[in-house]
C-alpha cells in the first residue's frame, strides 16, 4: 500500500522534480544480502540440531567435523523412547500445558471482561499488580512456591505445576484480553442487556465469540510458554512423576553423561509443537506478542 502511494507521488512529480528516491534505497542487492544472511543465521543452529539428531554415534564424535552426515539414522528418535523416559516427560508436558491453558482461559476471560467494562474499586491497584507480576523473575516465585507446596504435600505432582503455571501466566493473559474486550463496541453489549440478557450470558454468548482472536492469541502464548518452561518444573518436580521435557533435557546431561544424539532428538521433538504454532498461528502469535509488549 505504501509503495503504491509512493509510486503515485513519484509519477505525479516526474515532470516537476527529478525522480525522488525511495526512502532507504541502499541498494537492493545489499538489502537482499541482509535478508538472506538473517535467514541463514536464524535457521542454521536449528538445522544443525536436526543434523546432529540424525547422525550415527561415530559421526557425532568425528574429527574433523563435517557438515553432511556420512549416514542418516532414526535410531536416536527410537532411543529417546526406549532408553530414556521421553514418553513420560512428553505426557507430563502435554497434560500440564493443556490444563494450564484451560485454567488460564476460564479465569482470565471473566476477569478481563470485568476489568475492561466495570468500574472496579481498586482498578488501578489491580493494573499495577498485573504489571509487577509480569516483571517478577520466575525464580523469585519458584523459591516460596517450593516452600508452600512442600507444606501442602503437593511437591512433585502435576497439580502443583498446573497451579503454579496458571498463576504465573494469568497476568499476561488478562492483560492481553483486556485490550481485546476494549475493542468490542460497547453498544453490542448494551443492546444485549436491553434485550434482557444477564451479564454472564452477555459475556459467554456475545463477548466471547467477538474476542475469539484474543482468546486464540492468549491460549497459544500460554501453551507455548508453559511448554517451554524449565524453572518451575525444575523446582517443583523432583522425579519422573512430574518432570517435563525441559527438565528431561537436563537429565540427559547429568544422569547419563551427555548423549548428544539422543539429546538433540529430544530437542527436535520438543520444538515441533512450536514450529506448528509458528506456521499455523503466526498472526495470533505476533498479535499476542506485540499487544503483550505494547501493554506489558
Amino acid at each position: 500500500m505504501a509503495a503504491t502511494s509512493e509510486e503515485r507521488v513519484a509519477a505525479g512529480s516526474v515532470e516537476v522534480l527529478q525522480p525522488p528516491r525511495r526512502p532507504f534505497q541502499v541498494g537492493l542487492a545489499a538489502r537482499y544480502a541482509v535478508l538472506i544472511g538473517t535467514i541463514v543465521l536464524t535457521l542454521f543452529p536449528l538445522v544443525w540440531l536436526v543434523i546432529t539428531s540424525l547422525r550415527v554415534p561415530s559421526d557425532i564424535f568425528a574429527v574433523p567435523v563435517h557438515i553432511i552426515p556420512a549416514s542418516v539414522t532414526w535410531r536416536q528418535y527410537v532411543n529417546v523412547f526406549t532408553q530414556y523416559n521421553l514418553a513420560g516427560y512428553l505426557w507430563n508436558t502435554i497434560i500440564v500445558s493443556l490444563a494450564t491453558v484451560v485454567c488460564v482461559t476460564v479465569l482470565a476471560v471473566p476477569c478481563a471482561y470485568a476489568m475492561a467494562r466495570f468500574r472496579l474499586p481498586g482498578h488501578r491497584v489491580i493494573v499495577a499488580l498485573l504489571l509487577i507480576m509480569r516483571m517478577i523473575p520466575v525464580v523469585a516465585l519458584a523459591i516460596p512456591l517450593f516452600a508452600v507446596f512442600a507444606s501442602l504435600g503437593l511437591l512433585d505432582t502435576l497439580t502443583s505445576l498446573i497451579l503454579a503455571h496458571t498463576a504465573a501466566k494469568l497476568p499476561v493473559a488478562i492483560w492481553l484480553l483486556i485490550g481485546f474486550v476494549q475493542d468490542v463496541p460497547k453498544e453490542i453489549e448494551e443492546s444485549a442487556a436491553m434485550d434482557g440478557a444477564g451479564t454472564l450470558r452477555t459475556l459467554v454468548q456475545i463477548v466471547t465469540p467477538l474476542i475469539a482472536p484474543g482468546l486464540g492469541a492468549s491460549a497459544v502464548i500460554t501453551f507455548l510458554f508453559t511448554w517451554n518452561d524449565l524453572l518451575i518444573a525444575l523446582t517443583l518436580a523432583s522425579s519422573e512423576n512430574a518432570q517435563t521435557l525441559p527438565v528431561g533435557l537436563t537429565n540427559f546431561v547429568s544422569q547419563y553423561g551427555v548423549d548428544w544424539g539422543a539429546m538433540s532428538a529430544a530437542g527436535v521433538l520438543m520444538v515441533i509443537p512450536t514450529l506448528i504454532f509458528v506456521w499455523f498461528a503466526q498472526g495470533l502469535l505476533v498479535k499476542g506478542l506485540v499487544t503483550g509488549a505494547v501493554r506489558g
Partner: protein
Amino acid sequence: MADAAVALNQPGRRRPRGPLTSAWTGYALAGPALLVMVAIFLYPLGYSFVMSFFRWDLSAPSAPFIGLNNYKETLTSPLFQQSLRNQLIFTAATITIEVTAGMGVAVLINGKMRGLRAARTLLLIPPMIAPAVVGLNFRWLFNSQYGFIDALLTDLHLPAIPWLSDPNWALASIIIADVWQNTPLMVLLFLAGLQSLPQEPLEAAAVDGASPWQIFWYITLPLMRAVIVIALMLRIIDTFRTFDVVWLMTQGGPGGASSLVTVYAYLLAFQGVDFGHAAAVSYIALAISLVLLGVLYGLPWLRER
C-alpha cells in the same frame, strides 16, 4: 430502583448502566482469577519477602528474625557480586546488540522484498522455541572438540576458542545464544513499528534530497521512539529473568563466571538450602531491574513526544 425503572421504561432516553457498572458483579467476575493470583503468586511472594528478613533454612526447626542481615551478607558476598557484574554485562551487551542489530536488519529488509513474508515466519521461530533447547543446542555448537563453531574457526585458520570451559568466554557464549534467540523478536517488533510510520515525512525528506542515513537518523529513529522504549523495557525485564539458557549451557560455571542473578538465587535455594539469602537475592535483582526501568523512563530523549 427508580433509575432502573426509568431506564426500563424509556430505553431510548437513558442507557441501562446498572448491570455494566455494578462493582459487585465486576468483582464476582474478576474474583476467581484475582483469588488464584493472590493465593499462588502474591502470597508466596510476600511470604518470601518477609522471610528474607529471617534465617530461612527449610531443614532447620525454627527461623529466627535477623533483620537486614541476609541483604547485607548478600551484597558483600563475592559470588553475588560476580553474578551481579555478569548480569549487568549480560543485560547491557544483549540489549545493545539485539536492539541495534534488530533495528538495522528491520530498516534494511523493510519494504518491497521478495520472501519477506516467509522471513517473518522464520524469524518467529527462535523467540518461541524453548530457551532450554537453545541452551543445549549452543552448548553443542560451542563444544570445543566436536562443535561446529570451533571447526569453522579452525577452517578459517583462526584459533579455536574454549567457549564454555574458559571463564573469560563462558559469559560471551551465553550472550551469543541469547542474541541468536532474541534479535529476531526485535526485528519483528521494529518491522511492525516501521510499517505503521506515517509515510509523508519520509517521502518529503527523500524529495528534498536527504541521504538514506540522514532520513534514518533524523526522521525514522525519532518516530520510532515509542517502539524502541517498549523494546528496551521488554528486554530489561527479560534479561533479569534469564535462567534456562544458562542452566543448560554452563549452570553458571566455570566457577561462577557465567552465573546470572537468577542462577545464583536458584543455586542458593536448591543446592545450598539457604532460602533466606536466595529470597534476598531475588528481591535485590527485582529492585535493580526496577531502577533500570526508572532510569530508562527518565531519559530525556525517550520521553520527548
